[in-house]
């Protein structure tokens, strides 16, 4: 019996390890605490493509031997969008050379984007003399497929270029020229040969294919059949990434879930009402809906991004003297506020808000609103401290 005891003990330990092993492993965070993960309802085939895109976006590291640079900003997609959230000043982009809708005057001098890093042996770019510039903090990726699937007509419904309702808020689309490889959506509205842009700080990017191909090219120095020009030499070279990989990443970005709001307590609900009362919701529109798309899970859905995808004059304080498309230098696209409270989890535990990360808190970001946002900012400032706190709690819960 004595000899059997150790065997019994070891057997029990082994069974315990096998049965209980997952109990001793870290648990998954609640879905509402994470920005990544797919939209619900994807098919198995769509899951496979999502995973391929996920691997390319988050795991593919570029080095000299697979195409990095020679001039670049970051070495992977994930470097700028940790956990699919907002970026950090470490990978902030700098764009330069355009002051009005006549286009970028510095394309031959490295515009529109500064590649301020280079592989060994090469010299990185510098902003040319006389060029104005703006810094862009990388945005969160989540819910982009929903924004992509909003109809142009819905966006135009939010637009009020002549402020006919007299609320001090106009809101105009950024009308942009399409790149040759970009196919317009069904039902696209065209004005003087230009289309409504909806991605990027200035809404100068039409869709996620353009966003992805340009980011590979301008941020990492990777050429593709879509963007074949090497940012260092300015000449077309062989593609350094396949069309399939780019399409997988586009699919991944399209099918990332929308951020899930958290902490719907009474303060948050009160804060939401205050948000609407002070007029924030006039630009940061709560609700949108998608049209039919090729991805069933994204079709005909109501969602809550807190944006109108339109440009607004934000005043001289946020005017860097640089622009894209038909936007004026003081105009910025209303950034979606969904996922705002999770920004710190991708920005190293701190907030870097507004287009260039200058605001270190939600409250500071509100205070830096000018132009069309002035009235709402003043309304916010006039709130008692407790109500301000509730409004911030609401924004933090998104």
């Amino acid at each position, binding site marked *: 019996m004595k000899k059997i005891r*150790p065997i019994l003990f070891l057997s029990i330990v082994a069974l315990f390890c096998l049965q209980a092993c997952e109990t001793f492993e870290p648990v998954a965070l609640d879905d509402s605490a994470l920005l990544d993960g797919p939209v619900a309802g994807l098919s198995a085939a769509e899951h496979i493509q999502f995973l391929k895109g996920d691997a390319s976006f988050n795991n593919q590291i570029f080095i000299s031997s697979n195409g990095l640079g020679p001039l670049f900003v970051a070495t992977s997609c994930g470097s700028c969008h*940790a956990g699919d959230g907002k970026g950090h000043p470490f990978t902030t982009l700098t764009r330069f050379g355009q002051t009005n809708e006549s286009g970028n005057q510095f394309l031959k001098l490295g515009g529109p984007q500064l590649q301020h890093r280079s592989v060994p042996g090469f010299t990185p770019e510098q902003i040319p003399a006389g060029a104005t510039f703006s810094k862009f903090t990388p945005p969160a990726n989540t819910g982009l497929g929903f924004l992509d699937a909003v109809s142009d007509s819905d966006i135009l419904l939010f637009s009020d270029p002549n402020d006919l309702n007299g609320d001090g808020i106009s809101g105009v689309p950024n009308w942009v020229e399409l790149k040759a490889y970009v196919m317009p959506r069904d039902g696209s509205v065209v004005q003087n040969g230009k289309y409504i842009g909806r991605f990027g700080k200035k809404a100068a990017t039409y869709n996620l294919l353009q966003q992805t191909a340009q980011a590979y090219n301008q941020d990492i120095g990777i050429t593709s059949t879509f963007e074949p020009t090497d940012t260092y030499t300015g000449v077309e070279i062989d593609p350094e990434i396949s069309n399939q990989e780019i399409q997988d990443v586009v699919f991944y970005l399209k099918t990332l879930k929308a951020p899930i709001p958290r902490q719907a307590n009474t303060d948050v609900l009160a804060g939401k009402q205050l948000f609407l009362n002070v007029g924030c919701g006039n630009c940061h529109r709560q609700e949108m809906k998608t049209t039919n798309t090729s991805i069933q899970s994204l079709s005909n859905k109501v969602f809550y991004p807190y944006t109108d995808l339109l440009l607004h004059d934000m005043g001289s304080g946020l005017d860097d003297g640089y622009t894209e498309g038909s936007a004026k230098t003081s105009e910025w696209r209303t950034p979606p506020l969904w996922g705002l409270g999770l920004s710190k989890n991708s920005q190293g535990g701190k907030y870097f808000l507004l287009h260039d990360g200058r605001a270190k808190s939600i409250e500071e970001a509100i205070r830096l609103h000018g132009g069309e946002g002035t009235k709402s900012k003043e309304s916010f400032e006039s709130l008692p401290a407790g109500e301000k706190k509730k409004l911030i709690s609401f924004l933090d819960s998104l």
Partner: protein
Amino acid sequence: MKGFLLSALVLITTSLWSQVDSTLFRRANKDTSKLLLNMDAVYNRPFLSVGKTPVALGGYVEANWQHLGTDGLTEGHQFQMKRLTLFVASGISRRIKFLSEIEFEGGTKEINIEFASIDFEFHPLVNFRGGIMMNPIGAFNQNHDGPKWEFIDRPTSATQLLPATWSNVGFGIYGKKYSNNWAYAYELYLTNGFDDQIISNAQNKTYLPATKLNRDRFEESFNGEPLITAKIALRNKKVGELGVSYMGGVYNKFQMDGLTLDKKRRVDVWALDFNTVLPFLKTYLVGEWAFVNVDVPDTYTQQYGNKQSGGFLDVVQPVIRRNIFNFNKSVVNVVCRLEYVDWNVGKFKETGGNISEDFVSMVPGISWRPTPLTVLRLNYRYNWTTDILGNPPSKTAGFQFGFSSYF
């Protein structure tokens, strides 16, 4: 390589056949008369000789099961053949000896010659070694055999911050001196070195082991500059061993065909190692700490850090020494390993904030040594991995069970 494998196969076949008469075997006696240091580990292994041949064979094998999960996701049950290592040693003459070590990792995913050197003893203080050798940086690289350790995974700081096991072709000298309870030793080698993959790799961080992907490094230096590795160590019979080691050289290709490509950029590594047995409790402590400095171009990216540091501490407490399952004098240990690596020491140029990219690990466990040459290990691993920005860490944890044994 093929010839070597064929010879090894013939010897193994011979030994299998000769099992008919076990008197043909003899265990090579280990030298226990003197104080042994980590530098002696390469020869301080159980070897088996066949008959009166001067050749001795040995090796070890490691396999394990694990179930690890990261932030709620798991790959499930994994069975791993970590490594199979074969040693062949030969006493060519009384003061000339040869030893080779071939390692198969992950099945046959990696096959490496880790050691293949001839040692000439001119004087106890002057020995010449030439061939493929393990650079004596830290202690783990010299003394890494699985059966000597109570943990299934090798220390991250030793295998990823330092590139153990790290072998190169070269030459050098070493020597030892004994004085009462003390042993003093030195080693100095010139070998081929690193290449620019240490700052250009799929890990997206400064990563010295990336050079091991260069298959040409055993026959061609990347830049023609030798890597210097030097170590001094001292051991006291009652206190333990302390080692200080340095490894440094140029890692980049600064010129080609007479054309200048870049300035010479250096990698410099310092390591401290120690081991001791506490009196009374007989607790065995072994640890190592390393500092890595790499000249990364300012115009490159801070993703690749120019300073790194990290180390580990193993605490091994024997709790049972008795006959278990008829294994006389078997030992059960309660063990714990603490690990820390900062892959990128410094501040962001953009914000002045701390660059994170840290790894912290705690591995409690139990090991059972039925014989000194064999160990069964049950570990529970918990890792915290923080990205470069300092976002909330990714957590990995789970159980591992496996064995490692000389044969």
